[in-house]
């Protein structure tokens, strides 16, 4: 909210500069976002007389002017075509500042300069350069009769102010007006608050001029109407226009300007009806149980849902209550009599309507936050008073006040002990009362231990003891609260296993030479569909756009997108990992029924492993680079002995612990890569961290084993098998048959060719046997080999190669 420094000074004798005021406001919780100067007093701009105009020797467009400034004569270079001898012109003398914004945000200050070799001391100004209008066609020519050297500020009605833009937090409806901000400053700075003097009318429930009825007292607690008759609608006087313009409000006419003025002064949104347009001379506040179409002041026809609160006259709606008036009843140039509406609408109801209509007005903003329910009559009187002042007419004696729902002020007790316990202070009750002085909280009872306050109705945020403690804290200034006597704490609690695992995973991936990426977890449905099951997707009901509608079912899309992004920027290869949450529909759910939210880790390699160099040609990653990486990952996590893998098809390897699948390694298809617009060889493994955590909690921690004292016995078996037999299948059999003495198994040769027959391939395994108690010899290993070979022959039609 824009707050005028000048306006604040009408309520308090502010001893602070605008900057100091802003600093103080921020420190008491009214956070200042910006300070801006408004207008200009044009100090140093005076009337000059052009004595001579001659051509500039070095520039066609410039002219040299001799100007009489009264006390001195000076030379000024001028670019305007209309400058002529004998003119009286506004001259910005050296050192003066004009309301012209420079690129860095500062204002233009006139300096002595040389323009194309000619001295220029000052500037002859155009209308817009002085902020006096918009004309920039030439210099401003002043009235001949003006005295030379007279300050411009004495000729024109100039207005200068500083505007402080405050971010009002939702809990401070009282601070949405100048009086409220001034009250807070007065309390913090211990100043007197001078409120405007407002006369009171005679309260009636109904009058001959207008009947007011509230049908829905839940949504409209109070409706005050006040008549001003015989007004003359015209432009507001400059004091009113200037004050509104300074805070960014466009002046409309004297009556509308007053209603706005009172809102920014006291915080009560007002509406002025053209009395003549009110049909049946009655006002009814009601909602409808059907949809209503209504054209608001901004000439938009709006569909309003059932339950929207309206101000109606005898025939139908004339305004959406608290949000915006209608076109038919607005004040026009011909308006004679005014009905001022000053009402209290329920914040929730206004909020709902404003949201539905996507229409936040200065009025709805205040009603939503909750205005003072006892302000309506005062604000109506204030507006009537000001309307009479600026538009003439007579104020009706009667103030029509329909007030079905009354809000009383309430009492709140503050305990000294709890205050000090929460703030870490040592205040006595006198000090607390002193700190809160100025907030208009009346002390109704007080002893050594507690104080009871009556809470004014303009502070609906002060509901509980703790709310009052906040007032004590903020007005005292949190920066002044002393440090506690005790030091910083120690904790005996260990970092939990889950966190340790997550750290270990990131550490390991980094050690394996992978770079971590952070990808979007809200992706397009079509992207999710590339690798997820459509029925299992979780969507946002109100996505930002269709590219971010669906929660990622896996981390694959993020990797593919990041890989594509880098390939498009000439990267030759990527080695990435990511850890993140993934979401899938699932009957049971993780935290909530129906939603499985897991943490996954993805490893991805794509493109070239190395760049083309003198040493070797560029080589693409292969699936075995990734397999090695995943194996190393399991080793680092201490899981290598517990995880089995098996191929589900030629492109996919699944990792299992017992019967539980924990993830897979796969080769994305050409089609999938095409969707991301790249062709580089790509390999991805994605594992469930959630599953890994479960496994780690149930497998025994590995313990130290002595380094073997005896050498291992190495034996090679080469077999010929049909093409369709996988190495994995054979190794499973070998492991099963070899028993515990088999320490390690690897494949050292694979080939196919004519020599072993079409449809066949040869695989050579190297087996390492180890006995921890003795040196093994061929006699002991041979029976094992026999068993293995027999099984291979039987299960895979393998033939032992010589």
């Amino acid at each position, binding site marked *: 909210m824009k707050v005028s420094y000048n306006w604040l000074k009408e309520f308090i004798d502010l001893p602070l500069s605008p900057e100091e005021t802003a600093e103080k406001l921020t420190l008491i919780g009214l956070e200042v976002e910006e300070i801006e100067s408004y207008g200009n007093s044009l100090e140093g701009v005076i009337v000059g007389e052009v004595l001579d105009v001659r051509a500039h020797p070095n520039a066609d467009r410039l002219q040299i002017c001799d100007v009489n400034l009264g006390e001195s004569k000076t030379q000024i270079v001028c670019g305007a075509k209309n400058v002529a001898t004998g003119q009286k012109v506004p001259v910005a003398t050296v050192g003066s500042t004009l309301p012209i914004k420079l690129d860095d945000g500062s204002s233009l200050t006139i300096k002595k300069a040389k323009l194309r070799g000619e001295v220029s001391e000052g500037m002859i100004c155009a209308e817009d350069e002085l902020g006096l209008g918009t004309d920039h066609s030439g210099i401003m020519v002043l009235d001949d009769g003006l005295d030379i050297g007279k300050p411009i500020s004495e000729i024109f009605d100039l207005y200068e102010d500083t505007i402080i833009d405050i971010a009002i937090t939702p809990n401070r409806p009282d601070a949405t007006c100048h009086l409220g901000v001034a009250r807070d400053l007065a309390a913090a700075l211990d100043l007197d608050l001078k409120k405007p003097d407002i006369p009171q009318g005679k309260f009636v429930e109904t009058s001959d001029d207008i009947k007011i009825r509230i049908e829905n007292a839940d949504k409209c607690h109070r409706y005050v109407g006040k008549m001003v008759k015989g007004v003359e609608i015209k432009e507001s006087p400059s004091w009113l226009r200037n004050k509104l313009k300074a805070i960014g409000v466009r002046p409309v006419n004297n009556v509308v300007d007053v209603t706005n003025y009172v809102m920014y002064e006291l915080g009560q949104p007002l509406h002025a009806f053209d009395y003549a347009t009110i049909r049946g001379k009655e006002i009814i506040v009601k909602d409808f149980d059907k949809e209503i179409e209504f054209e608001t002041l901004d000439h938009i026809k709006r569909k309003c849902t059932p339950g929207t609160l309206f101000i109606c006259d005898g025939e139908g709606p004339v305004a959406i209550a608290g949000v915006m008036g209608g076109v038919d009843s607005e004040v026009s140039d011909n308006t004679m009599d005014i009905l001022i509406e000053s009402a209290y609408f329920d914040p929730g109801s206004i909020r709902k309507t404003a949201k539905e209509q996507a229409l936040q007005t200065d009025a709805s903003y205040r009603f939503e936050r909750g205005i003072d329910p006892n302000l309506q009559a005062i604000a109506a009187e204030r507006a009537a008073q000001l309307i009479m002042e600026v538009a003439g007419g007579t104020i009706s004696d009667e103030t029509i006040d329909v007030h079905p729902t009354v809000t009383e002020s309430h009492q709140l007790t503050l305990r000294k002990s709890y205050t000090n316990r929460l703030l*870490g202070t040592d205040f006595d009750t006198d000090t607390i009362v002193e700190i809160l002085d100025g907030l208009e909280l009346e002390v109704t009872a007080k002893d050594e231990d507690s104080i009871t306050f009556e809470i004014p109705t303009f502070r609906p945020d002060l509901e509980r003891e*703790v709310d009052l403690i906040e007032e004590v*804290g903020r007005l005292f200034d949190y920066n002044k609260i002393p440090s506690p006597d005790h030091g*910083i704490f120690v*904790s005996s609690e260990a970092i939990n296993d889950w966190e340790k695992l997550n750290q270990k995973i990131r550490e390991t991936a980094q050690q394996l030479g992978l770079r*971590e990426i952070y990808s979007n977890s809200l992706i397009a449905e079509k992207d999710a569909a590339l690798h997820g099951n459509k029925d299992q997707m979780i969507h946002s*009901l109100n996505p930002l756009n269709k590219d971010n509608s669906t929660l990622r079912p896996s981390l694959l899309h993020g990797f593919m997108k990041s890989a594509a992004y880098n390939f498009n920027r000439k990267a030759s290869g990527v080695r990435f990992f990511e850890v993140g949450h993934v*979401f899938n529909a699932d009957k049971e759910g993780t935290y909530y029924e129906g939603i499985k939210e897991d943490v996954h880790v993805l490893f991805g390699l794509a493109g070239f492993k190395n760049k083309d160099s003198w040493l070797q040609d560029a080589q693409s990653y292969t699936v075995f680079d990734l397999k090695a990486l995943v194996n190393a990952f399991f080793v680092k996590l201490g899981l290598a002995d517990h995880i089995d893998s098996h191929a589900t098809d030629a492109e996919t390897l699944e990792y299992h612990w017992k019967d539980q699948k924990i993830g897979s390694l796969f080769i994305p298809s050409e089609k999938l890569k095409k969707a991301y617009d790249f062709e580089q060889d790509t390999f991805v493994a994605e594992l469930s961290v959630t599953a890994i955590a479960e496994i780690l909690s149930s497998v025994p921690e590995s313990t130290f084993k002595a380094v073997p004292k005896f050498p291992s016995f190495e034996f090679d078996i080469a077999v010929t098998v049909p093409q369709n037999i996988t190495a994995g299948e054979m190794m499973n059999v070998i492991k099963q048959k070899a028993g515990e003495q088999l320490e390690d198994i690897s494949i050292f040769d694979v080939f196919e060719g004519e020599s072993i027959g079409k449809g066949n391939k040869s695989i050579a395994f190297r087996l390492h046997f180890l006995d921890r108690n003795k040196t093994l010899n061929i006699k002991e290993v041979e029976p094992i080999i026999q068993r293995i070979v027999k099984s291979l022959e039987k299960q895979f039609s393998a033939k032992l190669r010589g």
Partner: protein
Amino acid sequence: MLDDIKVLEQDIQQFEITDEDQLEAYRLEFLSRNGRVQSMFKNMGKVPKEERAEVGKAMNQAKNLAETKFEDAKLSLEQDQSKDLSARDDITLTPPSYPLGSLHPLTQTLEEMKSIFYRLGFTIADGPEIEDDFHNFTALNFPPNHPARDEQDTFFIRKSDDPNIQDLVLRTHTSPVQIRLMENTKPPIRAIMPGRVYRNEAVSPKSYFLFHQVEALYVDENVSVADLKETLITFAKLMFGSDVKYRLRPGFFPFTEPSLEMDVWWGSEKDGKWLEILGSGMVDPNVFKHAGVDPEKYTGFAWGMGVERIAILRHGIDDIRTFYDNDIRFLEQFN
């Protein structure tokens, strides 16, 4: 005899060997069958018995000298020859690059924060990114239809008119983990809760619809604003240096009362400005009630801050979207 040996040693030392020919000449003169070393040994017979031990020792020394010089000269000549290197033996050729792993800058910033919190005696907890209305809003003292809910534009996952079925949302802050922690743990509680959060906001260099927060919670019998302040200041000093200039000012969050925000001075004395780094406050009694903690017995503080915000400040990054592009040229600046 000893004098002759001395002369021989001098000759050996002074013999200049700079190429193969000289090496051969040296060999012939000193080490060949008829060379001077062999000849020297042949004179042993003429040495009186009582001097033999001494002379023999000197002779062996001379022989060693001759042989060592020969071997050294030979090696050094060979080495000189090997300077005729092949093109590929050029040590100045560029090597292949080593694949370096790295943690994302946001992880790095988060890890730094975590390590500070661990030093301050905090432990760590986490929770889901999809939360129900209760944990994300109601329990945190955002009443239904409260304007404070508007400040956190929310992505909904499930909405229901049935009051018995909770709306599900993408959490708008990490604060719901506070509720989970208090529901499941008896105070004292002192933990941080990092994680990803979502806001339905238009994407711009300054804002993204998802970002990361770290939440801190401390609940015990006598926790005060003074404790909060001390913790905040210690954190700021450890994060930004002990000379950091800071200020505390009142703020507003539905789940804390009183609420405070902390600004640090960023930039030079003259051209810098206050930048908000975190929001905090004393846990609102309503939050305690919702989470099943007695607000008369316990007090506590909570605070939260954005990981992106801190990372942006530290590294001078001008566009928040950069974090999610995963451009290698960006990532490799954070090795």
